[in-house]
């Protein structure tokens, strides 16, 4: 096989994996949007906050250490213990459930029946509050997150794909990051679980019911509050998973909250209300931007075809694609068709 084709395939595979990570963030958006019609701007920050909390608990950090030290003149930073990853993840989940309860009890309870734009503004407020709060609680330094996930390229895959070069001497097998592979498996499991939950359980059905009509949901005996806390907790869980994956990949840092921006085009492609849509949208964006970059910056492909090459397309490709979707298919690939009777 020619070099360019092999490289193209590798780009494609890596694009798929990047797409899975986008999809993980997008999934959190879909959950909350489905159940409450709220576009949760804070989803990215929730992932950041979850990752910060996880690292904090694992490392035995004292929460609000800087605040305490400044006020009382003490010098405490660590409890001096290390919590095993599994236990720390459970603790973090408890924190996320608590956070969901607080958000619903103190914010959304007072915004029932308000315009979507007001709810959206409220989530922007939550995003900035949570970012500052996370900073105050755990400090703003970049943290290393190691929950025992494998890192680096997979030698096994490299060795076992060498034959695919079909005699090409420059080819030593495909290079795939183990962490990305784990993320893919996790994302697939997560999506299957969420779909089964939404379609086949009583709580899932109640969730869809609440998303559709509040009044009707109440009249069949569904507690709106319970469903909202449940959904935000689920979104918190998805945020935690996304936080772990991104955190393990590039460290827990505050720019993590910006990955939420990449989830926007994913949602526009997949549709705001579709769980499978979030995944497919993520994959399309991931593969699309990597392949487009590869093709447009390659002298032997774009150079030959168009007579010029362009670079750094990864920055805008997703947004332009989303723009096209907004014009031609506003509900996205899998979104519920907007039916309106007059």
């Amino acid at each position, binding site marked *: 096989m020619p070099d360019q084709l092999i490289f193209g395939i590798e780009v494609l595979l890596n694009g798929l994996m990047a797409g899975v990570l986008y999809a993980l963030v997008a999934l959190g958006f879909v959950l909350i949007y489905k159940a409450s019609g709220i576009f949760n701007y804070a989803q990215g920050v929730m992932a950041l906050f979850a990752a910060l909390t996880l690292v904090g608990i694992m490392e035995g950090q004292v929460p609000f250490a800087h605040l305490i030290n400044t006020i009382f003149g003490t010098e405490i930073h660590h409890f001096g213990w290390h919590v095993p990853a599994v236990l720390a993840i459970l603790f973090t989940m408890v924190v996320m459930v608590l956070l969901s309860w607080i958000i619903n009890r103190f914010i959304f309870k007072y915004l029932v029946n308000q315009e979507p734009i007001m709810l959206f503004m409220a989530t922007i407020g939550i995003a900035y509050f949570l970012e500052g709060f996370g900073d105050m609680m755990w400090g703003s330094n970049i943290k290393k997150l190691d929950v025992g996930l494998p890192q680096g390229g997979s030698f096994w895959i490299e060795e076992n794909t060498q034959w695919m070069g079909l005699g090409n001497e420059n080819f030593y097998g495909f290079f795939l990051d183990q962490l990305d592979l784990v993320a893919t498996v996790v994302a697939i499991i997560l999506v299957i679980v969420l779909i089964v939950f939404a379609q086949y359980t009583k*709580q899932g059905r109640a969730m869809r019911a609440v998303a559709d009509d509040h*009044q009707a949901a109440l*009249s*069949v*005996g569904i507690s709106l509050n319970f469903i909202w806390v449940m959904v935000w907790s689920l979104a918190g869980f998805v945020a935690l998973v996304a936080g772990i994956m991104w955190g393990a990949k590039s460290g827990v840092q505050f720019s993590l909250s910006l990955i939420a921006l990449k989830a926007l085009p994913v949602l526009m492609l997949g549709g705001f209300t579709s769980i499978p849509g979030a995944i497919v949208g993520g994959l399309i964006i991931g593969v699309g931007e990597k392949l487009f970059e590869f093709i447009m910056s390659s002298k032997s492909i774009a150079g030959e075809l168009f007579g010029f090459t362009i670079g750094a397309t990864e920055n805008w490709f997703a947004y332009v694609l989303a723009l096209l979707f907004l014009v031609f298919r506003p509900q996205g690939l899998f979104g519920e068709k907007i039916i309106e009777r007059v």
Partner: protein
Amino acid sequence: MLDAADGYVTEDGRKIGGVLMEMKNITLRFGGVVAIKDISFDVREGEIRAIIGPNGAGKSSMLNVISGFYHPQEGEVWYQGAKRPPMKPYQVARQGIARTFQNIALFEGMSVLDNVMTGRIRQMKSGLFAQALWKGKAEKEEVENREVVEKVIDFLEIQHIRKTPVGRLPYGLKKRVELARALAAEPSILLLDEPMAGMNVEEKEDMSRFVLDVNDEFGTTIMLIEHDMGVVMDLSDRVVVMDYGKKIGDGTPDEVRSNQAVIDAYLGVAHD
């Protein structure tokens, strides 16, 4: 006068039981507007009870009081022999009081089957973890509930649209799906808010038949609000008449029909 313990037998031979629900001196105000003023009446087990009255008489407000959407400033609601504390609508629903809405409140994006299944929430007891693990009890429960739902769907003759998203259905069928959802809850009281509003004659006849059949087949106590005098008189055992938030008549259709205050409210009074 009837006493609470025993009931009566209707003209067509149905046995009506004791008092199931009683409204005592209900007053509901919105700011300075009095929507319901000092109204009392009872609902007996197995009967079809109607509230009629001109537009703005406070009929829907009364239904909303019963189903917990509104909370009256004064008065008491007695249900199954006990005074009911102020409750949220979902708690009322879980007590076995199901309702439909005047302007239809269905889950438009969900299929007819799923819509009707939501009516079973009261009966589904297994918790989140049992559901998540999808084993034993939860599975059995789902199957049992599905059976009841299929029966209701058959009963209301909506088998052919089971898998259709409700958003695509015409008005008359939506009304029927809403009734199915309420019925799936196997309610002790079924509240129908203008079940025939906006329907043509044929659809009205169908709906009337279903209301009678439901009462007959399951013995469900039904309370309905209706504009159409003719329909109400044919359907109901006893009728409450409201006007400007006050009760102006209460009794069998014949009694109500000959009540001068009712005639005045519906036909207007000559001011001479």
